[in-house]
């Protein structure tokens, strides 16, 4: 049977739609490094104003920024279903998100309720527009694609993260110091990390790991059930965890069991990915593969550290274990995946859009020439060096905080430079066509 393809010719959004998000992210990385350098070793701990500020410069300004840009690009390619009004939606979301992160980070850093209040409006509005647009396109998309169904779950998780985020932000505006406050924060960060970042990476992995790294496909049961099982686990965990506020042993044990369940889920994902990568057809290890591997190893370290902490009281009581875990998740897992993906997506986008404009069929650069391989390799080395330094920061802040923050600042600067190079090539050819 032959089916004429959808002849809507402008499936892919203009190149400026995803690129504005990608280009902004490294600025927030640099800013986070500067804030940490300025605050010094004393600020190294969970819940300090500095940590809250850099956490959001990274989770919203860097990680979510890129993930939103990547979704605007991936939806039409993988699902054949673009975001509605991509130019308008991306301008609105990008502007509100950028201003919102700046307001939130400065509000948390300087303890200014007004700034946090402004951030609540900006981020609430910006992320709601994105969630709405993504939901619209995901509803229209082909449902039996595992990436699409996973992205739906990730969008639900983002919405819940935002709701909890607004809830804890309201406490900062009103300067409430209720005893239950940290429970809401915990629910907020768990949904942000496992739900939004974790599930989105899993959904994207189903598509890109076999495709770019020439590995076998993820097992069918996993594609079908994993993201949904994590969602259900998170929902149970949240209800039980928030009930455990009414301190009782049963609820606490249930919370712990559900946390194990979530940790096992993430570890299975990381383990299967590493296994598939070891089975790949092509032996040449390209750099994307290395970034993904690093991400999976970090994720396994993260979940193991957490589990060990539950059984080994002296480690569990160590003040910085949560800090280290968070940093491993952010830099080791999320940022590694993001850098690896950006170095695939950006050259591809530049090349693709040049091809589209190339009606005179002049000779175009090869995709590999758009960002030199050598510079990506440098970036990998810098990023790899960062991870042991982070462990150092958690153990001996006085020694390690400056080298680690400086290294991440340089790494973000290199990312910015590489993206800029790709844009220059695009513009150079674009104007000559």
């Amino acid at each position: 049977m032959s089916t004429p393809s959808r002849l809507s010719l402008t499936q892919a959004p203009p190149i400026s739609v995803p690129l504005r998000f990608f280009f902004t992210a490294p600025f927030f990385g640099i800013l986070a490094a500067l804030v940490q350098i300025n605050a010094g070793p004393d600020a190294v701990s969970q819940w300090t104003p500095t940590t809250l500020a850099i956490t959001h410069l990274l989770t919203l300004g860097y990680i979510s920024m890129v993930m939103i840009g990547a979704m605007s690009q991936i939806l039409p390619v993988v699902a054949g279903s673009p975001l509605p009004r991509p130019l308008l939606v991306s301008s609105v979301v990008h502007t509100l998100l950028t201003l919102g992160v700046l307001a939130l980070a400065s509000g948390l850093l300087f303890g200014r309720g007004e700034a946090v209040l402004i951030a609540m409006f900006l981020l609430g509005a910006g992320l709601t527009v994105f969630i709405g647009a993504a939901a619209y396109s995901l509803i229209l998309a082909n449902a039996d694609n595992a990436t699409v169904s996973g992205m739906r779950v990730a969008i639900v998780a983002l919405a819940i993260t935002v709701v909890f985020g607004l809830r804890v932000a309201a406490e900062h505006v009103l300067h409430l110091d209720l005893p239950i406050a940290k429970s809401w924060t915990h629910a907020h960060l768990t949904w942000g990390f496992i739900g939004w970042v974790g599930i989105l990476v899993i959904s994207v992995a189903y598509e890109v790991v076999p495709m770019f790294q020439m590995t076998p496909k993820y097992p069918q049961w996993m594609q079908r059930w994993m993201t949904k099982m994590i969602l259900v686990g998170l929902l149970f965990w949240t209800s039980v965890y928030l009930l455990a506020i009414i301190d009782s042993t049963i609820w606490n044990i249930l919370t712990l069991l559900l946390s194990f369940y979530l940790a096992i889920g993430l570890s299975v994902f990381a383990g299967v990915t590493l296994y598939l990568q070891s089975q790949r057809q092509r032996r040449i290890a390209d750099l994307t593969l290395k970034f993904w591997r690093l991400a999976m190893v970090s994720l396994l370290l993260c979940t193991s550290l957490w589990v060990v902490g539950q059984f080994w009281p002296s480690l569990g009581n160590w003040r910085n274990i949560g800090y280290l875990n968070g940093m491993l998740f952010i830099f080791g897992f999320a940022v590694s995946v993001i850098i690896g993906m950006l170095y695939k997506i950006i050259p591809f986008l530049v090349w693709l859009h040049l091809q589209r404009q190339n009606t005179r069929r002049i000779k175009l650069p090869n995709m590999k020439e758009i960002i030199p391989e050598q510079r990506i390799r440098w970036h990998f080395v810098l990023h790899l060096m960062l991870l042991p330094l982070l462990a150092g920061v958690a153990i001996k802040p006085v020694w390690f905080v400056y080298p680690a923050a400086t290294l991440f600042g340089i790494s973000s600067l290199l990312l910015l430079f590489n993206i800029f190079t790709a844009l220059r090539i695009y513009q150079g050819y674009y104007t000559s066509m």
Partner: protein
Amino acid sequence: MKQELVLDVSDLPPPEPLEKVLEATETLASGQYIRMLHRQEPFPLYDVLGDIGFKHLTRVGQKTSFEIFIWRNSDEAAELAVFTTIGGA
């Protein structure tokens, strides 16, 4: 001259399928079309083809998941050949 140019890209990692097929469009003589065999629908390719003056038609394939037929906008002979192939096979 053969009317059909078969291009099996189903084993190639991205971006090679796209690179290969775009190279092939440059060599297409009048009356010829490409039958691209692929493991997935190449949505980004459709945009490029439209912009550089090619038509395409996609159907579920026999050997691979998808078959994409590609020919020049103005090439009526190729278009007829595509429709005959699709109607016949």
